[in-house]
């Protein structure tokens, strides 16, 4: 196969330390596009990629017409590489025609610190013997240090072009494409986890590297109705929980620990409602410990803090009844507001690099946006209220499905929605100013119904826009 040239990056030996692998940098031009090679920090001056009369494969580099005696007329710069004192620079070239007086190819080493160069090689084409003849070069490079290879193509007269191909530089790649193709800096990685100190949130801790947050700013809000499976008053304030996650991961993108802040803002209900959540893709055995939860009276909890009975999905019970923590409702204007109640839940997934018995959990497996929060109504463990179309836990009482106003139909993936597809819970991606007691959300947020009935296309900012016509502030707590 002509286009199956050697791999562009060939690993000859195993690791010799950070950035210390012995490798060759090659270029066979077979990607056929300059931006690809420029992304790899190759640079071209008046040299294009051509599939007309290539030296090998389908593509070669080709200069413009060499009618200028300046060596800087046409050139190719390699990425920065790090030479170790020996090895041969190899490449193929050919002159396509020879109508001019003289034609030359010259090879230099460029220095990263200044504009000085080191001469390596020069060839003057012979007329007519070298026309269309592929010439293979093998140029010793006995220098040590970081350089780039520079090819100059020049000459006078005629309309003659040179092609170049099959470059092999006997040195490892030493450019940083993410830093304007500068030479790689000296890397300081104190904890040796593979993440440089300046990009490591925990530069002295080999078991931690990054913090991520969900949502990215502020807290999001869960707003529940607790009369499920019957409709309630749709004031969406029977339980209002703010939430935010900080996820700490290691250099391998595995979750080390999760800091979950939950803020009880309102419980406009006479019933004693609990709250919990589930990670649908996380085995309970991957959780080492859970701390920071409230009272869990009536629930059976495993030694690691997850709930017993949900054997395949880690489930956390945050508290058993909200009024234990917030005696006032925080939904009635004129009644003094009580302080929000904060729960700082801590979930440990790795301890000094060792995961829980069921194995490590990647960031993608944690799937934080797919967490499954739920309310437990009035202390009845099986009476869960989830976000629309979110699955019940194993402990949900499924005999309640399709009773009263609920129209859950697992066969079509419909959960916790009414025959009219109305939910009993909303997840607002920000701080939500909930309606006052017994005030239907459609009356408080004047474009809520528009958003719903437009299938989400109109007024997606119904909850966040405080402009005229969006809210009836008298109906919002």
């Amino acid at each position, binding site marked *: 196969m002509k286009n199956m040239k050697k791999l*562009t*990056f060939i690993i000859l030996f195993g690791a010799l330390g950070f*950035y210390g*692998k012995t*490798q060759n*940098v090659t270029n066979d031009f077979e990607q056929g596009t*300059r*931006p690809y090679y*420029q*992304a*790899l920090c190759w640079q071209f001056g008046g040299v294009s990629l051509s599939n007309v009369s290539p030296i090998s494969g389908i593509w070669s580099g080709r200069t413009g017409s060499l009618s200028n005696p300046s060596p800087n007329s046409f050139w190719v710069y390699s990425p920065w590489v790090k030479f170790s004192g020996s090895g041969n620079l190899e490449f193929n070239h050919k002159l396509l025609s020879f109508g001019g007086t003289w034609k030359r190819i010259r090879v230099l080493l460029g220095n990263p610190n200044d504009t000085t160069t080191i001469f390596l090689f020069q060839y003057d084409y012979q007329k007519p013997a070298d026309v269309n003849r592929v010439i293979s070069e093998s140029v010793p490079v006995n220098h040590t240090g970081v350089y780039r290879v520079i090819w100059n193509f020049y000459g006078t007269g005629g309309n003659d072009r040179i092609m170049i191909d099959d470059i092999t530089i006997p040195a*490892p*790649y030493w450019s*940083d*494409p*993410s*830093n*304007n193709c500068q030479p790689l800096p000296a890397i300081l990685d104190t904890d040796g986890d*593979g*993440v*440089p100190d300046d*990009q*490591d949130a925990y530069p002295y801790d080999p078991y931690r590297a*990054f*913090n*991520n947050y*969900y949502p*990215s*700013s502020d807290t999001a809000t869960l707003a529940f109705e607790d009369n499920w499976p019957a*409709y309630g008053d*749709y004031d969406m304030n029977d339980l209002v929980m703010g939430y935010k996650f900080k996820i700490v*991961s290691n250099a391998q*993108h595995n979750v080390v620990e999760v800091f979950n802040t939950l803020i009880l803002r309102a419980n406009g209900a006479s019933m004693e409602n609990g709250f919990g959540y589930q990670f649908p893709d996380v085995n309970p055995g991957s959780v080492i410990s859970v701390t920071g939860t409230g009272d869990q009276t009536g629930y059976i909890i495993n030694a690691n803090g997850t709930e017993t009975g949900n054997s395949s999905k880690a489930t956390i019970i945050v508290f058993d009844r909200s009024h234990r923590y917030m005696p006032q409702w925080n939904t009635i204007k004129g009644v003094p507001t009580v302080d929000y109640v904060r729960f700082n839940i801590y979930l440990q997934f790795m301890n000094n690099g060792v995961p829980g018995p069921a194995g490590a959990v990647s*960031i*993608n497996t944690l*799937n934080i*946006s797919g967490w499954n929060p739920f309310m437990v109504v009035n202390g009845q463990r099986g009476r869960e209220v989830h*976000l*629309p*179309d979110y699955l019940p836990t194993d402990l949900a009482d499924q005999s309640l499905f399709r009773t009263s106003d609920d129209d859950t139909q697992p066969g079509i993936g*419909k959960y916790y929605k*009414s025959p*009219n*597809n*109305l939910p009993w819970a*909303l*997840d607002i*991606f*920000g701080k939500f100013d909930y309606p006052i007691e017994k005030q*239907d*959300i*459609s009356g408080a947020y004047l474009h*809520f*119904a528009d958003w*719903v*009935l437009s299938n*989400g296309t109109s007024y*997606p900012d119904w*909850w*966040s826009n405080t402009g005229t016509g969006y809210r009836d502030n008298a109906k919002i707590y």
Partner: protein
Amino acid sequence: MRTKDLKVNPTFDWKTSKDITLNVTGLKEINPETGNTLYIKSSKGETIYRDFLKMNTNYIIKFTVPSTETGVILVYGSITKSIALISGTITFNYIIEQ
């Protein structure tokens, strides 16, 4: 209109956010240890997600933005790209089209 009188399309997504999958295509030719932190930022410049990516590796990254968000800015060292959120999947590579 009362909420309980609304007749909602069964396909309506009640979420006020949207999940995005980002496919990152690496350049296999890059030194295996060369990497940098990828920042996914909202159109307002808030960091949504960050992770250290090696340039020679492909990645699949999931993140969430408000439903109202129309685009994100991806910053990887000296490389910055703005990407419109037209669908739930976007792509990123290190190649700058000239």
